């Protein structure tokens, strides 16, 4: 042991060691109401950035045997407004616009003309519950390719009959399990589940699976992300 030091010297040594910790006070910014919101928004943006980097186009969501599918009656119906926005199914068309070569109105028959994909995948709600559903539809990528969507565009956004709206990053939109879904459990979509057309994206959380689609837009920039995202939920929320 080295030669003794005075009490006073020890106090100053100790004090210096405590002062080294002071940069931690910066975290106190999270407790300041004015700074809290932008800081948390920034933190969520970092998470979304990392999520987009973690996304692998070739990585498929797990698929399940028919025996593992949740019964249709136990598939929850989630809305933000009404179960049935009373879509006129007879005259329904999907309005397509934006960075595409063939903009215009598309009928359900035109969308159903593409190869039908049927998949049993997990529907995971942001709240934490999940169900395994059976979904059928057209690959969004097939549809986007056929309408000549600009491959350099960054977003596919949709609007719904109940004023809900959503958007997808292009890599997720082009994922082979991402569907323009018109069937659940081998039956045409029921009104509560989004008739006649909804999004079904096994690589995204539930609130991205918009129902009752009316418009689809391909774009380079979006001024709003989605109904829940614009209230503070994750913009990307890839699974």
């Amino acid at each position, binding site marked *: *042991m080295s030669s003794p030091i*005075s*009490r006073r010297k*020890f106090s100053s040594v*100790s004090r210096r060691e405590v002062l080294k910790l002071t940069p931690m006070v910066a975290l106190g910014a999270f407790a300041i109401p004015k700074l809290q919101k932008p800081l948390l928004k920034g933190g969520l943006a970092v998470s979304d950035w990392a999520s987009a980097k973690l996304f692998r186009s070739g990585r498929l969501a797990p698929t399940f045997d028919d025996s593992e599918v949740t019964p249709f009656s136990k598939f929850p119906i989630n809305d933000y407004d009404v179960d049935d926005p009373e879509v006129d199914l007879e005259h329904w068309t999907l309005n397509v616009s934006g960075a595409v070569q063939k903009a215009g109105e598309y009928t359900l028959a035109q969308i159903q003309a593409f190869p039908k994909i049927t998949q049993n995948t997990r529907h*995971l709600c942001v709240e934490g519950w999940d169900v395994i559903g059976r979904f059928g539809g057209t690959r969004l990528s097939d549809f986007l390719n056929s309408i000549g969507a600009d491959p350099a565009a960054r977003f596919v956004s949709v609007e719904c009959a109940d004023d809900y709206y959503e958007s997808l990053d292009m890599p997720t939109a082009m994922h082979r399990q991402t569907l323009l879904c018109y069937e659940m459990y081998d039956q045409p979509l029921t009104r509560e589940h989004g008739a006649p057309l909804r999004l079904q994206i096994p690589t995204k959380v539930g609130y991205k699976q918009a129902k009752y689609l009316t418009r689809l837009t391909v774009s380079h920039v979006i001024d709003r992300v989605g109904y829940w995202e614009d209230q503070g939920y994750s913009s990307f929320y890839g699974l």
Partner: protein
Amino acid sequence: MATRAIAIEDVKSGEQSEAVYEHPFVVRLCHWLNAICLFVMVGSGLQIFRAFPSFGAKIPQKDLLHWPKAFALGGWLGGALQWHLTFMWIYIATGLLYVGYQVFSGNYKQVLFVRRDIPGIWPMVRHYFFFGPKPPAREAYNPLQKHAYTSAIGLGALSVLTGIAIWKPVQFSWLASLMGGFHWARLWHFLIMWALLAFVFGHLVMVVLHGWNNFVSMFTGWKKDPEYRVQ
């Protein structure tokens, strides 16, 4: 491993005491960062849990418990997710910094529970819980402390891994499978939180029992009048 010790002399009385440098700066920094992170992660995690307080089906939903909103952080699910997804990065970074520092500095020997600590477990348990004699202290941490701290680090790692499994059950589907599937991963994540809270409770009780010098050492690094002699 050389622990630094100094003698302190009272100029007036000439009385001598001793202090040891027990907690290097990085360890202290990580300790307090982690304390804040745990507070935020647990608080926001419980708010997230409130959105679906069950580990079964959605229909019919059988709630496990109704956690009071007053003991949760974030106000609503979206707010809690913002806290959780922001502080998880600080939590992970702190964990990596801590483990990296301990390994590269060799300081891990102070705290890592190893085989030769096993025989010392029972005497410590007897002392703490059954009023047995106090085993002589030879180093900063007794075998039971080492076991608790080593377990806590393990639980921290598991909290991150189970968290990743439920945050990214597609990109890291293998991780979820390893834990028995998505539902199990979510349950493990929840149980690990309680295990960490149990550790924190025991830790705080011990801090109270071991007095002021011990508490202050996590700020200054220096512990006055240690119970053990530094070789």
